[in-house]
């Protein structure tokens, strides 16, 4: 256990060191996934998509009761309406996404032309703008509702994020995301991995810290604390603010790269959005 912990930490420590010391994304992914699988030997791999509820039977029971009348249902039906309602020009989202709405597993992905990571919300906004509509705020409100519908339609899809080897900028974006994940920040001096790596499964007061593995599969989430549905980047903002650091822009470069790294770590897990969390 200590050895695997040391290796995971080594990923973080290597970031400050020369590039030559760094592992490949595939090696990172194996180290990362195996760390959590060994740390929680009673959790089947696919159950990591359920976060802290994979670890805590009492919490899971309460959560399963909530899931019988899912709090995200209104968001899903609003999103479904949005998907089917034509824009002012008569076109719909389906004109931009002929394979839609179950397209969540295709995001995020590396866009060679743009030279950047593209998120689902970016492409949905691109579709809106191409049809003369105003873009929506990516992480809340109607965009989060539209994402809730798309997530539901994408349930069970397995996401395998690719880092194209013929474009070094893709690897650079991944590495930036990884660096973000392991960098301590804010007045509290916490990195993402401080709480969700070696301390996952421990309690922060009465809350169980969820394992990092599986964090990206269930978005958007109806969070009781929010009283509404919100996207992954909204959660990123909240996490950064909680450690008293500066939050970044939703769909901005920092969070896009972070999502790229985290979804790559979660590759192979089935999608289970939208989710319900405390």
């Amino acid at each position, binding site marked *: 256990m200590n050895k695997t912990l040391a290796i995971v930490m080594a990923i973080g420590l290597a970031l400050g060191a020369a590039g030559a010391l760094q592992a490949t994304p595939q090696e990172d992914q194996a180290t990362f996934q195996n760390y959590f699988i060994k740390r929680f030997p009673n959790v089947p791999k696919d159950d990591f998509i359920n976060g802290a509820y994979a670890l805590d039977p009492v919490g899971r029971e309460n959560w399963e009761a909530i899931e019988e009348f899912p709090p995200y249902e209104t968001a899903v039906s609003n999103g479904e309406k949005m998907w089917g309602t034509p824009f002012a020009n008569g076109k719909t989202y389906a004109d931009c996404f002929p394979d839609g709405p179950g397209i969540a597993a295709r995001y995020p992905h590396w866009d060679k032309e743009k030279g950047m990571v593209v998120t689902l919300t970016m492409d949905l906004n691109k579709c809106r703008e191409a049809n003369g509509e105003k873009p929506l705020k990516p992480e809340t409100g109607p965009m989060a509702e539209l994402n809730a519908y798309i997530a539901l339609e994408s349930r069970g899809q397995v996401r395998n994020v690719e880092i194209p080897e013929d474009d070094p900028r893709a690897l650079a974006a991944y590495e930036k995301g990884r660096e973000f994940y392991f960098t301590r920040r804010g*007045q*509290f*001096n*916490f990195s993402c991995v401080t709480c969700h790596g070696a301390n996952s499964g*421990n309690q*922060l*007061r009465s809350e169980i*810290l969820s394992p990092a593995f599986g964090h990206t599969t269930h978005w958007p989430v109806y969070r009781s604390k929010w009283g509404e549905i919100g996207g992954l980047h909204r959660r990123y903002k909240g996490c950064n603010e909680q450690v008293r650091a500066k939050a970044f822009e939703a769909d901005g470069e920092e969070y896009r790269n972070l999502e790229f790294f985290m979804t790559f770590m979660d590759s192979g897990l089935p999608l289970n959005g939208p989710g319900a969390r405390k």
Partner: protein
Amino acid sequence: MISLGKCATGAAVAALGCVLLVGTSAAADAPAGDVAAGKEIAMDRTKGNCIACHMIPGGQSPGTIGPALVAIQARYPSFDKLRVQIHDPTVANPMSAMPPFGRNRLLTEKELDDVTAYMWSL
């Protein structure tokens, strides 16, 4: 001697801390803070919030991230070393998960004295 000076200038609550201090650690390396005020800081979500990660005798719903805060004097060679640990735990261990309460000014110097005095009493 330093602690006695603090006691003389401290508020009424501080006196309690001094009594405790005389009873438990009359050694040369004596705490400079106010034990009762330190306890409040340790339990306050907006201040030290030590209870979020550490079991503390008498504290409700403690976290399990850090070690239990018991028998502190058996674990730290001096009050000053303990204060340094709370001020910036990354000095002793760069990978420590604990926030650097002094270095990042999560607590004032006075609050650090108080919370260290409280820990030293455990």
